[in-house]
């Protein structure tokens, strides 16, 4: 009988592959992978992480 991947297996694999996907902005894939691994991938968690990314990028540019 063919084995069907569980939801967790599917998510684990997706976020692992996302890190290696050059078509996706690496800062975004890194953030989402980190949030997923920490069990914090929620709307609010993602928005907070994205805001920090924008601020860091702006500070790097100006500083």
């Amino acid at each position: 009988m063919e084995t069907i991947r569980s939801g967790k297996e599917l998510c684990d694999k997706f976020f692992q592959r996302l890190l290696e996907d050059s078509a996706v902005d690496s800062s975004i894939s890194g953030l989402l992978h980190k949030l997923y691994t920490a069990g914090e991938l929620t709307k609010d968690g993602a928005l907070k992480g994205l805001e920090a990314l924008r601020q860091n990028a702006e500070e790097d540019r100006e500083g």
Partner: protein
Amino acid sequence: MPKKTGKVRVRKLTLAGFRGARQRIGLDFKPRCKSIVLFGDNGDGKSTFSDAIEWFFTDKIEYLQREGCGREDYFNRYMPSGQDAMVEVNLSHNGLDVQKILHRKGGSTLAATSPGIAAYLSRSAGESLILRHHTMRKFIEMSKTQKLETVEEIIGFGIVAQTREALLQAANALKKDESLATLQGQREERKRDLSAELETTEFEDADVLKHADELATKCDPSLSISDDGEFSAAVEALKTRSTAGERGKELSALDDAAQKATVLSEVPPLLGRVRALVAGHNKLAQDQERVKAIALQKLYDAAIEAITADWVPPGECPICRAPVDTGQLLTSLRDQVAQIAALVTRRHKVVRAAKALSTRVAPVAQGLDALLEHDAKDVFLTDEGKIEIVELSGALSACTETIGRIEASYDLVERPSAPDALRTIANSEDALQARIRQRREELDETDEERGFYERVHRLTKLLDDHLRYKKLARQAAAYESQVESLQQVHDMFEAVERKGVAQALKAISTDVNGFMTLLHPDDEFDEVELIPTGRRGVEFKLKYHGQEVSPPMKMLSEAHLNSLGICVFIASARRFNKENGFLILDDVVTSFDRGHRRLLARLLCEKLPDTQILLFTHDDLWFDMLKGELPASDWLFKEVTKWTKESGVDLRDSPLSLKERIESYLATNDISAAANKCRTLVEETLKEKCEKLGVRALEFRTGRANDQRTAAELMDGLTSYLKQNQSLRDKTSKRSFNHLRATRLVANFGSHHRTLGATGLARGDIETALVDIEQFESLFVCPGCNAQPSIQFSPRSSALKQCRCGDLKI
């Protein structure tokens, strides 16, 4: 016995005070966790066992909940009112022995031998364990989206759905972020200014630098601009040059003042936006009753959970324990929660708008203050003008405070008053710009000077717009790129999810198709599939007599739809129950005809050989059929005895043969039940003889169709066979045939009047019938080899069939 697959099975199930079980009662599957067929008439309490398992695993009994029953209905009605109910489950794996107590005072507790029980119960959540008659078509009748959600739940895709939602919500929230809208607005404003200077709507950085280079060269041919650094340096040099003399300084200051004075035109629309914000906020704040209710949201949510999870008895308020109409209370609580959610959404919108507005008010207020501090203020501002600007600046400061209060609380705030200066602001700005122009004329600029200062002014503004536009564009692009990336990740995730669901659907479909064709070999079912529909949906598609049907309700009968329900349940349990190796089928064959029931038994044996099945039925014919069909080595057969309020549900082992069953009925003086079984015994005996002898008229109907023959039909077929072959023509044999005919009539009579209780049959009639059946059977048994003549032992061309040794030919 089910093979060892590592999945959990039930060793023993014990109940006391739960549903129909008043006294302590146990279903014992030991020592090998056998499957069971449990027979009981309707109302005798066999579902008590499936209810107990459902409550044990889920804390509720869903079908009772739907009927408006609450946790007090889980207690046996006739036990002492202070007594708790108990369900004890002994499982096949070490340490998984659990006693769960349902307390009268509310709640339940688990007493387990292993701390791993919580993890086990958590892993078991969502597994398909119980199928009941009234829920078997639930899946089929769901909407396409509900079907998909159910499939996702069955295959453990809850985490997938949550992750997809989080990605989508984050992308949408980012797209609608007020800060992004503000950035985009400011970017467009700067772009408009740049377009006006460049006289084109489409331009790039190089176009701006080229234009700046042209302007700078006209001011000073030695200047050259090819990047932002050179642009800034050139503007700085030109500004220094333009302010070198007193006259130049003043002209430059006037240019600066003329530009800064434009801030005045921004004040009226800004104050209008603040007043609109205050109006929206105050509208919310006026509904203080609902605002205060926000603090109660958690309490309302907890109360809803307490009611829906049956933590409180129906009719009792979960907060104050006062008597209430639970249905009405639930509706009211849900209504309150929905209203609070709407209020909170509106509040978030107001706060977002306040934040966006505060980023505009501050720079405009600073612009006004800059005018008051300007080096050339005495040139372009009159005393009244200064007072007006102070007034406007004060109004904007008040706005800043108001916005802060709006962000901080739901309290009503005062609407900012419109300063008198607002009415004259347009005239003031015109007068201000006129005074600047007049002073310029007084300074007696030459055309060349005017051109120079104008170009320096344009270059200064161009540099400011250019740098600001680049920054705004970069900041907005950072947002937009994140939105795009999130959307991209969401789409990729959804594609992977679809693939995963499709894989699961394919697996379920393969099984369901196989099961349906096994259950309905003559009905030409084919290509039964669960297929994805639209963006978020799943539906059945199948071929029935070569014709495509979707959804199945279009064409399939009740029995077919029930079959489909059973097949989906078995397929999903077989594929996706990772933890538990047992299933409960509670009265699921009610709408099946006899032939399909036997096929269902075969399906369970063939397709679920590793699964412990707990099969409950009130159908005695099927129960007897199963005894013949299912191996006694792997299966237990038990009966629920007549329910009484004194002892509640009780069990007994079921006799394995029909004769034993008839004798057990006679022992309890249940003559009508014995007569009913006697009729079945006559039919089974005749059928067996006909099949062994290959009675011609019956040859073409085997298996399911054979089950549907009547005793009279079988008797006629057998008589005709014997007559044709001149067998058993002696007087003793003929007498035995006649006795069997009489037995059939007697049993039919007793059986058909059973429900009316009008049978006049006596115990002796049944005992005689049993003797007659035994004598009839003995006619077909060889005294030498003790075997019956059968087509199995006979040459193919022989009309007569012989026994194993060949001594008896019939």
